[in-house]
């Protein structure tokens, strides 16, 4: 995954959870960030809007870290689901 995409994902997570941008890193766990299952659903919604994609339930249900979220999106993009739109589109 490109650095730019990674940064966009971190930004979406931070914004949707109203966290300071620097607080969300690739190594953060959801537990550290205080993100529960309902917050996780909100993050998926924000990511779907950011990248204009549909994220299926499979592969995202057990996600508990930022790294897992990035990996899941990478798999989705690799699978041909919605090539990521340019930022601010």
């Amino acid at each position, binding site marked *: 995954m490109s650095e730019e995409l990674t940064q966009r994902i971190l930004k979406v997570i931070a914004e949707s959870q109203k966290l300071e941008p620097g607080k969300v890193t690739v190594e953060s766990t959801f537990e550290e960030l205080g993100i529960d299952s*309902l917050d996780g659903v909100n993050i998926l919604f924000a990511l779907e809007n950011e990248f204009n994609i549909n994220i299926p339930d499979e592969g995202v249900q057990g996600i508990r870290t930022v790294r897992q979220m990035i990996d899941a999106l990478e798999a989705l993009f690799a699978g041909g689901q919605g090539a990521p739109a340019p930022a601010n589109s």
Partner: protein
Amino acid sequence: MGQRRTVVTGIGVICGIGNDAAGVWDSLSAGRSGIGPIRNVDMTGLRFSNGAEVRDYDPSRYFRNREADFLDRFAQFAVIAAREAVRDSGIEWTPELRERGVIVTGSCVGGQNTQEEGFRNLYVLKKPRVNPLTIPRTMANAGASHISMETGITGPAFTISTACSSANHAIGQAFWFVRSGAAEVAVTGGSEAPFSEGNLRAWEAMRVVAPDTCRPFSKTRRGMILGEGGAMLVLETLEHAEARGARIYAEIVGFGMSSDAHHLTQPSVEGPSRAIRMTLRDGGLHPEQIGYINAHGTATPANDPTETAAIRAVFGSHADKLAVSSTKSMHGHALGAAGAIEAVATVLALRNGILPPTANYQEPDPQCDLDVVPNAARRADVECALSNSFAFGGLNAVLAFRRWQ
């Protein structure tokens, strides 16, 4: 006035597994699921496509001329179920009895179809006006109001909206009205018609609906399946029922409520177990008297292990002697109607000595290690049964019934 024994003397139901009580019981006792492809909404592009819709539903079979125009689908189900329950009870209304009657209904979203039609006209079709019946069709109390007009009941009538616990909260209030002497007879239950595109999209966004079917307590469960319908019970004092020679289905003996004070969507063990304990205490029941529990059993990853733990917390070693099934595996999760459909299932299970199964069950889950009556109904004469409902928002309501003999 002391507490009066309260009995169930009429039942009515329309849902995804039958359009009357006899049809629903046929399906329940055969373990036959009504879950299938949703037909009333274009499901293109949604992550799920199955639900438990009322099949072959034609409002003109139930409502004459313009009658149906005044009722959203959810209120039609309430009226249809109430008519059947009242007819089934054989009750004969007098002006005095109508004043001593109470109506309590449950609904989660009320007239969602009507609401969405209005929004579509405004926001999509850019029409400048909506149907003038939008407000009275949408209001969540429409079911209660129409039942009042149909039966002529002039006592208290109101509606409770506590998401998936709505009908259990409603039946519980009606039960306490009758038991306390505040009413002689009650028509109570719930109804829901959640199959509209906006509502289904909202459920999809929550990521709790299964792409296949509803498999409660099974390791392979993937979430809930929505259902629709209505169910109503006629409750009355034992004295009144015996005086008129009514057929008694079961006695309603206990009701308990609690709130988790915890989380909007994550269930807790403590809240439900307190509601079950309250129900036992309210009914003066020992845990060992319970032989069957109609579970909340939504088949979400979170509910079923939590409910299992709550049941174990209350019943201890007796939990291994309990039969626990989720009939949502057949009629789906009908939200504000769920508790009422399940109350009918529980009452008929006690009366017929047959426990309806958990359908679609595939594989044991160590976290759901109760006897869940997998896939096939079972003959069993149990003395008492519970029916659990636990709602989003952490609101729990449990009913207890006793076999009548």
